[in-house]
């Protein structure tokens, strides 16, 4: 009886909190439909006949920021970087876990170490190196992301690999598989849950990353965060309406992704943490 009472109480607390959590997004959505000068003064008022602007903010926003191309680049960079990260870091993690050598353990600790280094430490030199090597384009940045994502990803993969017994690998070798086949046919399927976790954590990071792509490719190729920031900083004016519309547009892909992969995301975050 008492428990039931508390559960109902909890339910209402949670309900109120949920509303509070959704409220900010709701505010942005309603303001994206208002004229730009009716936003700053009264953001919590629903649009009315005087202030309703239709989709005008969306069209101006998409036009001035080049949102569609930004969406394209964000997708391109995120998808391929995550793909490359999964393929190469899983192989590296397996190799340096299985082959014991001084070099490999040094590499492992260097990778783990890179996780706590703030980006500001390397931002200038890294963008310089990227430029000299001609990596300052959407393909080159994938390599940069591989380098930066390697720390966390290798760490998580090897955490899991350590718990996998070597016997199946040995059996496969005896059956005549070469090392490459052993990894992809035998080991990788076992790593799949970890791979999903790694993919999700990296997707969340790369999709939302601002400073790295801004410094490396931001002048020529804008990703979504860069486009949003440019709308605010650029053109010597802040079009609040267009800004609101862009915020909504940049949230939509995230929400879609979230609703589609919710199960994996929540699981991924939880298991990623437990191993960490």
């Amino acid at each position: 009886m008492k428990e039931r009472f508390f559960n109902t109480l909890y339910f209402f607390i949670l309900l109120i909190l949920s509303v509070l959590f959704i409220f900010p997004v709701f505010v942005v959505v309603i303001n994206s439909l208002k004229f730009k000068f009716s936003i700053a003064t009264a953001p919590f008022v629903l649009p009315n006949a005087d202030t309703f602007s239709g989709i005008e903010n969306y069209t101006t926003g998409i036009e001035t920021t080049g949102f569609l191309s930004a969406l394209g680049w964000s997708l391109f960079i995120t998808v391929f970087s995550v793909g490359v990260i999964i393929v190469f870091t899983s192989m590296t993690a397996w190799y340096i876990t299985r082959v014991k050598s001084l070099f490999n353990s040094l590499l492992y600790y260097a990778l783990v170490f890179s996780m706590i280094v703030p980006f500001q430490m390397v931002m200038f030199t890294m963008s310089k190196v990227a430029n000299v090597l001609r990596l300052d384009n959407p393909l080159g940045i994938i390599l940069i992301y591989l380098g930066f994502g390697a720390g966390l990803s290798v760490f998580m993969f090897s955490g899991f690999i350590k718990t996998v017994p070597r016997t199946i690998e040995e059996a496969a070798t005896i059956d005549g598989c070469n090392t490459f086949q052993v990894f992809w046919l035998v080991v990788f399927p076992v790593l799949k849950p970890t791979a999903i976790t790694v993919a999700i954590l990296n997707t969340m990071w790369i999709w939302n990353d601002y400073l790295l792509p801004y410094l490396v490719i931001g002048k020529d190729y804008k990703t979504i965060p860069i486009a949003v920031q440019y709308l605010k900083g650029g053109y010597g004016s802040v079009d609040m309406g267009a800004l609101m519309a862009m915020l909504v547009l940049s949230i939509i892909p995230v929400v879609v992704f979230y609703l589609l992969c919710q199960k994996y995301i929540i699981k991924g975050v939880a298991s990623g943490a437990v191993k960490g």
Partner: protein
Amino acid sequence: MKINQYRRYFPIFVAPCLVAFLIAFVIPFVMGLFLSFTEFRTVSNAQFVGIENYIRAFSDDSGFLESLWFTVKFAIISVITINVFAFFLALILTKSVPGTKLFRTVFFMPNLIGGIVLGYIWQVIINGVLYNFNYSITSDPTFGFWGLVILMNWQMIGYMMIIYIAGIQNISTDILEAAKVDGAGGFVTLTKIIIPSVMPSITICLFLTITNSFKLFDQNLALTAGAPANRTQMVALNIYETFYSRNGYEGVGQAKAVMFFVIVAVIALAQLYLTRRKEVEN
């Protein structure tokens, strides 16, 4: 024999990652260390100046200490609030309350939104509230400070909550049942059983919130950009501004970055060491 057979595969298995890691991290890191002792505009014209950059980093107008202090205050408050809220949400959500799945989905959602976008969302909301009192977020650094705390809570609570939920669900029901049979009350169960058993979750949550709070950049840039008068500027933004907004301060910026790195590393490692020890003790 076996090892040698593996070794042939080094170029395929390790080299790509290694090259990327060298290019994106190791080389820039070493260069960065070196450049912090030089004066430079572009890398090619660096001149050795000893520790002068480190001294200049603490001069009156560099704002480094102020931003560091601001960051520390921010980190302390947000780490506490985020973890407390997240932990209690996790407790409630592991009870048999209807709709837990849906609530979990909602609470986690803000975490997927990028820092820049989050910053602007909250800027509109906070300015909208303050407008009624004829203030804006830049009127007073206190507004910016609490704005950042609220924003950070909104973003991180869901994430930490998921980790705590995983921790709590890992506690075997037997122990909880046993405690109940022994007549342990809610508070005792919490402090004697639940908290000690979720120590690994606490370790990781503290680690994530501390490092994220210290490294915060995008949210700071979008919400206040340091206004008014750089009094809501966090370390990461201070370094960025030193680097890119002032000619002749590149070396100072790099020196600040090195110190920032040392501070973050020391705090993160100290925290891991301390909480890990707690895990072992229990």
